[in-house]
């Protein structure tokens, strides 16, 4: 048992640092560190830089252009990215649909879709949740009725993150009638967004962000060739993917970086006669979350280590989601505590790129309340924390 990096790993760390130093655009870095949402152009620009480096797909096998990194290399990568202020890649193509395609797709589908995902030529979004379905994914109502070589799709998807930019959407749709058992009636379809029957309507969240959308399908005709794998197996594919996705969700590296930023801010914030960082009540809360994050980091490393010895991440990895979101949300609260009155101003203009007016409040702090509000979603989306607890209760504790 040890936590030392090998000399190869240390060399890799240096390579990563050098790359980020040289290639990460300053404007993207600044917005990321200030926790201001990026626009599409910035995301694409950064992903193309990663593509050129060969580092776009850290979770793909090498045969499709992935990095083939070890868990330790991924750990190093995530930490350095957070430290330098490199944004996370948009996961819908690279991390969500691609694994389904390279695991369950046909040879033709792989060749057709994977290169554009890798090169960030195509923006994907996710069509799982439906209005009123909440965490009960299997109850979905969007139908795909087969007519010859096409499916005719009708229904609505919701909470579609950044769907306003998307070229393609991957969807779970109902291909079987009511006579078929719920989950066996579900198929996995890839649908091009430029179809006239598709409309995207924005959902504005509490922090004032337009991040999520409703996507409506009105007699959208989709070639059968765009179905992944077999009809009626969509739920199986999606579930595998959901477990797969659970590790990144802890966002340990990001939370570590945010805590570090927070400490600097608190040390510069006056609180009575000393700095806020010296306020023992604040220091205690900060220490508690820092320690909990240390624990989470090692919980994630233990999971990764188990995965690297060939085990699939088990349902116990649900705690990564639970603790990861709890910690991130708690850090949001410490930001608000640090901001005091300046957490409240809600000045949308100053988050637009190119804003050159007078900034209200000191930098990253001044949007701490909107960010807190917006981040409440993280314990609701992606299988709410309550659903995660049900999973652990049933599959780990056997209750």
């Amino acid at each position, binding site marked *: 048992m040890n936590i030392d990096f090998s000399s190869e790993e240390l060399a890799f760390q240096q390579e990563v640092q050098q790359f980020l130093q040289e290639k990460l655009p300053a404007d993207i870095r600044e917005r990321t560190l200030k926790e201001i949402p990026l626009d599409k152009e910035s995301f694409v620009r950064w992903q193309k830089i990663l593509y050129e480096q060969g580092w776009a797909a850290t979770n793909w096998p090498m045969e499709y252009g992935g990095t083939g990194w070890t868990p330790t290399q991924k750990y190093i990568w995530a930490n350095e990215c957070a430290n330098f202020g490199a944004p996370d890649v948009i996961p819908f193509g690279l991390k969500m649909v691609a694994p389904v395609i390279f695991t369950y797709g046909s040879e033709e589908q792989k060749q057709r879709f994977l290169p554009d995902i890798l090169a960030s030529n195509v923006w994907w979004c996710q069509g799982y949740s439906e209005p009123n379905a909440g965490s009960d994914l299997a109850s979905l109502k969007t139908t795909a009725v087969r007519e010859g070589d096409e499916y005719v799709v009708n229904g609505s998807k919701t909470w579609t993150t950044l769907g306003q930019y998307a070229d393609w959407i991957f969807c779970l749709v109902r291909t079987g009638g009511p006579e078929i058992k719920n989950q066996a009636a579900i198929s996995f379809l890839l649908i091009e967004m430029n179809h006239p029957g598709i409309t995207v309507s924005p959902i504005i969240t509490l*922090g004032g962000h337009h991040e999520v959308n409703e996507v409506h399908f009105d007699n959208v005709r989709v070639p059968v060739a765009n179905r992944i794998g077999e009809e009626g197996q969509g739920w199986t594919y999606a579930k595998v993917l959901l477990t797969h996705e659970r590790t990144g969700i802890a966002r340990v590296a990001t939370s570590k970086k945010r805590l570090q930023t927070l400490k600097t801010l608190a040390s510069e914030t006056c609180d009575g006669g000393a700095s806020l960082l010296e306020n023992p009540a604040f220091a205690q809360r900060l220490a508690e979350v820092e320690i909990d994050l240390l624990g989470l980091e090692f919980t994630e490393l233990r999971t990764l280590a188990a995965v690297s010895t060939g085990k699939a991440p088990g349902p116990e990895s649900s705690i990564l989601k639970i603790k990861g979101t709890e910690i991130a949300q708690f850090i949001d609260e410490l930001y608000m505590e640090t901001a005091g009155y*300046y957490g409240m*101003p809600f000045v949308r203009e100053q988050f637009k790129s190119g804003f050159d007016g007078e900034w*209200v409040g000191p930098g990253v702090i001044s949007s701490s*309340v909107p960010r807190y509000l917006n981040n*409440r*979603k993280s314990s609701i989306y992606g299988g709410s924390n309550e659903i995660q*607890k049900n999973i652990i209760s049933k599959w780990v504790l056997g209750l």
Partner: protein
Amino acid sequence: MDFSYSEEQQLLQNSVSKFIQQDYDFDRRCKIVNSDIGFSQENWQLFAELGWLMVPFKVEDGGLGGFAVDLMVVMEEFGRGLVVEPFLACAVLSGGLIADGASEAQKRELLGLLIEGQLQLAFAFAEPQSRYNLADITTTAVLDGDSYILNGHKAVVLNGGAADKLLVSVRTSGAQQDCDGITLLLVDTNTAGLHRHEYATVDGHRAAEIKFNNVKVPIANRVGGEGTALPVIGKAIDRATLALCAEAVGAMEKIYKKTVEYTKTREQFGVAIGKFQALQHRMVDMFTEYEQARSVLLMAALKMDANKGVAPKAVSAAKSRIGKAARLIGQEAIQLHGGIGVTEELDVGHFFKRLTTVQYIFGSTDFHTLRFAGH
């Protein structure tokens, strides 16, 4: 000991409650929030006509009596309706400062107009570096003949954009955090050298950054003595804090009840989610937090009335406890509503926003817990 409302208080409550229910539904509130000035002049006039603007003031000042319990009655209802009209910033906080600190002549000039709804006031006390320390003041006022010359920057001034006049806490002597040397000045917002940058706050209210660049204020506009304003300021802030607590209690009652009702209708896996015991127990916790919060509010209001308006420890107890309850109830309401809870579309999210900001206005929960403890 008596916990029942007097007949007058009952009438007052009915009157505000009727307004909230009939004239302040969520859609109307949204329109008001998105309007140019961010509140309704018409409503403000109505508040004046119905005598609500008299509530914070003593009978001799033209008010209703100025009891904390009366104030609580109004603010709880305002909380239930998420009212954005600047009752707290203008009538309670700024009005309170004048009632407590101003000369009889100043009171005559200002309070009548305020109570008639003809005068908007704001109190500019916070500064970019001050956080919750009311004595941390770098805005200076230097006497020059029979005027003060003001320079400095006041931060997040509630109702600062709409205000006709500002009350400004300035340093006339002493070092940055000294308790002595703080003076209160009344400044017309159209005075030369005064710059306002108004913006929306996340909870649907309005505030402004206000900068003073050699702003000239006649000495006659001083409220109270020179250098001795801090106790008056502290008392006014405490009173406003209590009012804010009452607003929060009203808002949290609404949101916990809405959550309970929502879970009775919302189905997941074929069952109303209110049937899930894990969620039931969490809603019981919300209910318990609400009841405890309301109890501490009552305690503080009664103590304030019993102690002639001075009850800093009781106010800090209330702010601390209510902040804790507002946090739990707000977060749980959103979590139990699920996705719909984090959208702008539903009123619950807007209650959550206000229940978030009240945790930080006039001192955070931690700040007041330690203040209660005497630290």
